[in-house]
């Protein structure tokens, strides 16, 4: 482990130096394996947050109170420590700027933003002109991962539209949308992109189910929608 930085009170981004890291595609994940002295093993998957070509790989990990791996990664790992990492893994939930033929429509719930942020970073790093939009649902402003980075990307790029909606925040400091994602929010972004998009949805199971349905109601064909679900035991958990 090279370095660790906080994104939110519960979420940290960990940079690793991996000899012979083969590179990765935006959206892929890596498997982390922890081994205790007596051979006991715990393994979990985490989405890669750093874009292809940037220093890393970096994983963004949310600390779950009842987790087995995430409390260790976010609380006990020290610079110089070595862990076992396998990857990159996944060939479906990936986006490549050079192969993109349609706008990019991203819908994230909570920590589901990680692989989508990787796609946005990759898009920016590659200088892609593909129009993109991110609809990001979080409970509170404090829990918005990458809030400043996302703001930077949005300010510098007229082809990128960012919409963050908070489902629990009641704050005068927040002037943005609130409440769960709904058809109006999804439609507004789809219309802004103007044509059928490549859609990527990531978050907990219930969120992904709802978001996929909204995308289809907004006119996105099912085959354009790719989903990644962080269930109770999926990536970014435990």
């Amino acid at each position, binding site marked *: 482990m090279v370095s660790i930085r906080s994104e939110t009170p519960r979420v940290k981004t960990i940079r690793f130096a991996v000899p012979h890291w083969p590179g990765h595609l935006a959206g892929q994940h890596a498997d982390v394996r922890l081994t205790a002295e007596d051979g006991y093993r715990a*393994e979990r*998957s985490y989405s890669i947050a750093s874009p292809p070509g940037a220093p890393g790989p970096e994983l963004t990990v949310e600390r779950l109170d009842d987790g*087995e791996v995430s409390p260790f990664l976010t609380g006990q790992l020290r610079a110089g420590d*070595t862990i076992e990492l396998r990857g990159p893994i996944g060939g*479906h939930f990936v986006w490549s700027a050079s192969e993109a033929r349609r706008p990019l429509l991203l819908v994230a719930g909570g920590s589901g933003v990680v692989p989508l942020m990787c796609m946005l970073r990759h898009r920016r790093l590659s200088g892609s002109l593909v129009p993109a939009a991110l609809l990001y649902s979080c409970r509170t402003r404090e829990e918005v991962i990458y809030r400043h980075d996302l703001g930077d990307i949005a300010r510098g790029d007229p082809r990128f539209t960012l919409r963050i909606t908070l489902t629990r925040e009641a704050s005068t400091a927040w002037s943005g949308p609130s409440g769960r994602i709904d058809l109006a929010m999804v439609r507004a972004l789809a219309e802004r992109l103007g044509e059928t998009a490549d859609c990527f949805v990531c978050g907990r*199971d219930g969120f992904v189910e709802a978001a996929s349905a909204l995308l289809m109601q907004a006119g996105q064909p*099912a085959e354009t*929608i*790719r989903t990644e679900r962080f269930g109770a035991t999926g990536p970014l958990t435990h």
Partner: protein
Amino acid sequence: MATRGFKGMRSGTQSKRLPPGQHLARDFPVLSAGPTPHTPLGEWTFTLEDEDGETLASWDWEEFRALGATEVTTDIHCVTRWSKWNTRWRGVTVDRIFEAAGLDEAPAPFVMAFCDGGYTTNLPVEDLLEGKAMVAWDYDDEPLEPEHGGPARLLVPHLYFWKSAKWVRGLRFMEDNEPGFWETHGYHSYGDPWSEQRYDGD
């Protein structure tokens, strides 16, 4: 290689009943590549096809259910590392499906399971016979929910659960073991959890 400072949860569930790298899930996680399909039962069919896509046998929902149900209680193992013990299913065995189709012998050694939404997965026929697999329509005594593959999914519990294709609509026989959806995207062609065959090359 031990990870400095890692002790683990030691909840006693790293038993021999769990394949390597797995842990027990408290719930029943849902994973999918895309949105959940919703096929009306009136339009649902299950079909056996030969390599050219010709229909060998086909049943609508009522006919399929009338083939006769078997119940099974079994452990399941997902490649994302969760497992569940003692899951209960009801459906028709692949043995019975082949029998009802008049197939004494499979016309080819492999099948591609095909599904609503476009999902596919490849399997050797011998991994589906002799009670090893069924097409299930009930889970835990309730009709299988769409998110979990309803109205019916393939159930092949001795392999990683991506082989238990959700929303299954049929099997197409193949001479060669062509890769299905996840197998084309980096996952192992066979998927034996006990040999930890998760990814291509394992």
